């Protein structure tokens, strides 16, 4: 087991190094931060000196090594645009993104699971067909369109909810939360809905497929034969057996949502990590871009590694797959 853990961790570290390398390669095509930092009247000499001070003239290997060495110690430097410590910037934005993702996940489960059960149990009923149709729309509409439509309906026409921003926030230590103020909660609704549309569909379809499978199982028939009420069989016995993959999927999707929140955050001017990244790209703010990519990929890698380790713990067959040469 220890060997397995070590191997997994080493894999994760390797992936992180590869991500850093890729990020660095991409930056070469992002352009020159110095052109964005100086004003129109700066001379050629000023520009060359600034480039030198930022270490942009060093060789690729030198820059990469310096970056990795500092990043391992949690030091990503300071932002070119904001002149703030990059870790502080990201730490400030992380709660906003996390709350958004959390609420979107809750919405996707609360809406998606019942919808999935209904479409499986009452197949071909009018309600189920409508839900199915709705899910197709949910998958096919890009989330920025959903966002704009929500803004048009609820902010411009009805005037119920704010079109942008995070409302008032309350600080608890370094964590800022919008969940404790009325304006913060109101501001959270539209972005969370918009972010969750895809997720709702995904959960619903997964639950539906699993339910259809489970409802055919013998023990469901026996339960019915024993006289257990239909609803109890469906919502309790069958659904419980469907939830394992849903939980796995939801866990894995959190990383995805954090990455996809970027679009939603731009539409709703949500002051989260995605917003920070988009602005960093516009201004070629290399330290922020590098840190964002690394942190998001770290979240992905950490989630995956955790899932793998949990599986190995649950299922001993996975532990020494290499020794036997098969899966």
């Amino acid at each position, binding site marked *: 087991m220890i060997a397995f853990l070590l191997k997994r961790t080493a894999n994760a570290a390797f992936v992180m190094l590869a991500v850093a390398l890729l990020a660095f390669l991409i930056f070469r*095509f*992002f*352009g*020159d*931060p110095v*052109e*964005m*930092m*100086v*004003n*129109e*009247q*700066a*001379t*050629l*000499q*000023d520009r060359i*000196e*600034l480039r030198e*001070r*930022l*270490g942009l003239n060093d060789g690729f290997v030198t820059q990469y090594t310096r970056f990795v060495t500092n990043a391992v110690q949690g030091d990503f*430097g*300071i*932002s*070119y*645009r*904001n*002149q*703030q*410590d990059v870790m502080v*910037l990201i730490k*400030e*934005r992380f709660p906003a993104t996390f709350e958004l993702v959390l609420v979107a996940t809750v919405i996707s489960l609360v809406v998606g699971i019942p919808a999935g059960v209904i479409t499986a149990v009452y197949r071909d009923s009018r309600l189920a067909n409508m839900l199915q149709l709705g899910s197709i729309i949910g998958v096919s509409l890009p989330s920025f369109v959903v966002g*704009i439509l929500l*803004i*048009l309906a609820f*902010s*411009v026409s009805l*005037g119920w909810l*704010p*079109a*942008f*921003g*995070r409302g008032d926030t309350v600080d608890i230590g370094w964590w800022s939360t919008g969940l404790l103020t009325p304006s913060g909660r109101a501001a959270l609704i539209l972005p969370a809905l918009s972010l969750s549309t895809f997720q709702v569909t995904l959960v619903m379809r997964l639950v539906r497929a699993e339910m259809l499978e489970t409802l055919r199982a013998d023990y469901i028939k026996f339960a019915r034969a024993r006289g257990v009420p239909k609803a109890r069989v469906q919502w309790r016995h069958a659904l419980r057996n469907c939830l394992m993959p849903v939980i796995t999927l939801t866990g894995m999707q959190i990383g995805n949502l954090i990455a996809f929140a970027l679009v939603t955050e*731009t*539409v*709703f*001017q949500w*002051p989260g990590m995605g*917003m*920070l990244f*988009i*602005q960093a*790209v*516009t*201004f*070629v703010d290399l330290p922020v871009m590098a840190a964002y990519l690394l942190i998001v990929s770290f979240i992905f890698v950490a989630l995956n590694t955790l899932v793998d380790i949990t599986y190995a713990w649950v299922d001993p067959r996975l532990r020494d797959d290499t020794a036997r040469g098969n899966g």
Partner: protein
Amino acid sequence: MKLRHLMLATAAVASLTGTAQAENVLKWGANRDIGSLDPYSFGDSFTINVLNHVYEGLVRYNKDLKIEPALAESWEILDDQITWRFKLREGVTFHNGNPFTAADVVASLTRVSHETSPLKGNLPAYVSSKVVDDLTVDITLNGTYPLLLNDLTNIHIFDEEWMTENDALMPTDVGAGTEGYATYNANGTGPFIVESRQPDAKTVFVVNPEWWDEPLHNLDKIELTPVNSAATRVAALLSGEISFTNDAPVQDLPRLAAAPNVEVLEGVDLRTVMIGFPFRETLTTGEANPFAQKPVREALYKAIDLDLIHQRVMRGKSRTAGATVAPPIPGYTEALDALPGYDPDASKALLAEAGVPEGLEFEFNCLSDGLVNEEQFCQAIASMWSRIGLSPKLDVAPRAVQSPKRTNGKTDVYTLGWATLPLLDSYSPLLQIFHSKDGNAGVFNWGGWSYPELDALIDAAGSELDLEARLALQTQALQVVKDEMIMIPLHQQPMAWAVTEDVAEMPLFPDAKPRLWFARMGAAE
């Protein structure tokens, strides 16, 4: 239940009367956030513009964009012709209560011209400054230089004591990787005080009751919120969540104008849009470069149907230009503004005469996030050039990607917009675009041209202290630019702001900078 209704009603009445007596809060939805609270740390004109509400310079622009005294009351040039003596205003205090003195001016000028300051180019002629007495400062330049006042409009004055206390005497050096106090805190003399700031979310400014000048505005508070997405900005304006934006998207103007609670303010920007040519030996394809010959540039100029671009691409909202500077800019004359006339047949003849091969390929470099409708007018021009037998390859990408190609000569024909900021004088494009590359000069001379007679005119203007004589030299230089067709001017681009009905007065400035100390709100009057 009844009691509850009563309470609700009372609350409603209270909130109504509350609005009637409420403060005048201007909610400004900008298309981006300011970089930091330190105007000297990132060479970004929007940040400087916004922070001008908090910090002030020795001189400032008035409503007509003429220079007037601000923190300095008067000035004179001493007998050596290179030292300027400024008499400072008495009784001015910083937001923290410290008095404004000559030492503050010297400390600020030292900070902005420090070698790690990205803004040191804004004071090109500055050498040193010294305190004469508490309210007198001498600034020494590297030669006779007529545009010091124009430069100083953008140099914000900090409090020396405050900077010393907080270890902020030097600008934040990104290369060193340490943060600066002035990034998070501000202490100026201006009409507004920074109350709070959450980057990318909201920055709040409150009125400075101790301001030295008689306020023309009636604002109590400004809330600056960046709203990057254009669609969201429009929605926020329609729903009244913001009361002002300095970037109303062109495609949404009819919709905004039709809304009962929104007023659109349209004008023509000072920014002149131009096309530049390479003067190198070869093109990026390796072929010989024909653009260094004037007849070839003339051919490309005459092949552009400026009227069609004005009507179709710019929807009739631009101002077609023949001069490389806009009419309000000193040095402009009507003669400079003559148009060449659209004549594709003449273009073909000129190209044939110059021996330009049929179907000559060259790159045409445009920005996707640059000028108004840039992508569209570039496409239009590329197809107009195809019609006279050339094969321009359109290369459209964001500024961050294109800038290095342009500055390193890795492209051929390119676009450039120039608003003459921050000088608001035709000396700005002459020195920075049309002069040969040489230290401070020709930084934007991306084509790499060199006209010694033009350089001589510009250099003469750069040391001429008499205004009339200087402008005559600059007009002459602009005429050379025009005759040689070094760059092709297209138009001055449109600009649009929008306000909701709460805002009574919002003067639109052609340099596209909001100056909210001239704004008035109507609700409370």
